[in-house]
């Protein structure tokens, strides 16, 4: 690793460990994870189910606290949830008692220093960015799964967080809708230059979206390998070059899993 990190990373994880005491005894969900996330980077964390991906995001979001190690946002330790790190969950988590526009306004209303017109304008801007300008009066249940996830995206983007955390946001969607959203999210990423951390178990998705792909291995969740993805954007999920890179990551993953079985 070169040593040119003069600029502070957006997020710094130092030896982060999180354990749970559940019904089945003590589980180490993530162990000794150290990572720097650059400002404006699209980082994808990939790994099989149960390897601690959601736990890691909850830690970054401040919804859970680390047992060991530390997480810094810029220079400040992360302890509690905050507007600077918004989360997009696997299920859309839209509030069913609010319409689409009010959902997007929810986070904006908690942001001080804006007038109501500015909030409305911003909410409408992000709704049109995800192609749902005409749906602002609809209730979440009146939308398709893909549309709901787009509203959720607009809701997380609207307060302009420093970091956007995404927990398998596309896994409940059909392939066509997903492909479309891969396009949307890349477009927004290049346009808005956000720092994004996305978690997924889909390796192709990871390679399609990430500037860097971090491979986690399970039990306990540890960083196994980090891949730099230098393909030009926008990337298409069916691109052959992307497919061969994805195959490389898959091979790395299965070798780690076999290693785990044999040891």
């Amino acid at each position, binding site marked *: 690793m070169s040593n040119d990190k003069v600029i502070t990373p957006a997020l710094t994880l130092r030896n982060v460990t999180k354990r749970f005491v559940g019904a089945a005894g003590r589980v180490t969900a993530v162990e000794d994870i150290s990572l720097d996330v650059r400002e404006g980077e699209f980082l994808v964390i990939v790994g099989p189910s149960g390897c601690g991906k959601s736990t890691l995001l909850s830690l970054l979001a401040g919804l859970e606290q680390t047992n060991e190690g530390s997480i810094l946002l810029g220079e400040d330790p992360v302890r509690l949830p905050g507007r600077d790190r918004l989360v997009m969950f696997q299920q859309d988590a839209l509030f069913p*008692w609010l319409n689409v526009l009010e959902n997007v306004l929810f986070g904006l209303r908690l942001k001080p220093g804006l007038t109501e017109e500015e909030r409305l304008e911003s909410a409408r801007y992000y709704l049109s960015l995800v192609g749902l300008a005409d749906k602002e009066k609809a209730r979440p*249940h009146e939308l398709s799964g893909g549309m709901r996830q787009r509203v959720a995206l607009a809701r997380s983007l609207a307060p302009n967080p420093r970091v956007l955390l995404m927990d398998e946001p596309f896994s409940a969607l059909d392939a066509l809708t997903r492909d479309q959203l891969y396009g949307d999210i890349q477009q927004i990423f290049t346009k808005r230059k956000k720092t994004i951390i996305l978690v997924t178990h889909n390796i192709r998705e990871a390679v399609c979206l990430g500037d860097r792909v971090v491979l986690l291995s399970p039990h306990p969740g540890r960083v196994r390998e980090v891949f730099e993805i230098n393909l030009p954007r926008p990337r298409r999920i069916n691109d052959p070059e992307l497919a061969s890179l994805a195959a490389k990551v898959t091979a790395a993953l299965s070798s780690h899993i076999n290693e785990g079985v044999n040891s």
Partner: protein
Amino acid sequence: MKLPRPVIPTLLAIAFLSGWEWYVRTGHVNEVLVPSPSHIFKWFYESLVNGELLSATWVTMRRLMIGFAIGAALGVPLGALCARVRWIRDTLGVLALGLQTLPSVCWVPLALLWFGQEESAVLFVVVMGTIWAVVIAVQESVLSVQPLYLRAGMTMGSQGWHLWSRVIFPAALPGIVSGMKQGWAFAWRSLMAAEIFVVILTGFGLGSLLHAGRELLRMDQVMGVMTVVVGVGLLADIIFFAPLERWLRSSRGLER
């Protein structure tokens, strides 16, 4: 051919009332004990005209509304507190669960000793009838709010009172409304019990009217008042709770 939905019930009701009328008029039963529908209707008309029925209904409805409002106003925050604080749930929550099973007539003797034959005694009984059902409903529905909503709210910067008023309560609202409806039903029953069993010096309500009917052996009055009591219960459901619940369900896409 398809008949409009109200046709069959109306026809059946007419048939039932005519049969009853005929049965009583032909002397099959003692008319003092079983008045005919026309008698009941006559009482109904007369007491409407002389104002007795309206004033009794007003007295009762006022007690019900005030008692229910107090019970709900106390029950909602107490239920929220039970949901929020473990030791309150283990004490007040358990107490509420127990007291909810206590028929609210049981509060009448206590209320009389504490407050005398006064308005406050009736109110106390109504409040006791309402509050525990509301406490439990609020506690349960707050506890079963999806954690996902809380997490989403918190990451957007909602906390404390904002989280309660903008996320937890709206999410729990359908459950809270069913609890209110149940509380309303309990309050209505307890109020009738109180008015029938106790002479309240401060106002002559529907229950007192029913009781007076018994004393005077006016079965038309007894059954007439019973009809009004049923009607009030139905109306509360038809014009208030049912539309509210329907709106809550359909606006959230919960309608089957």
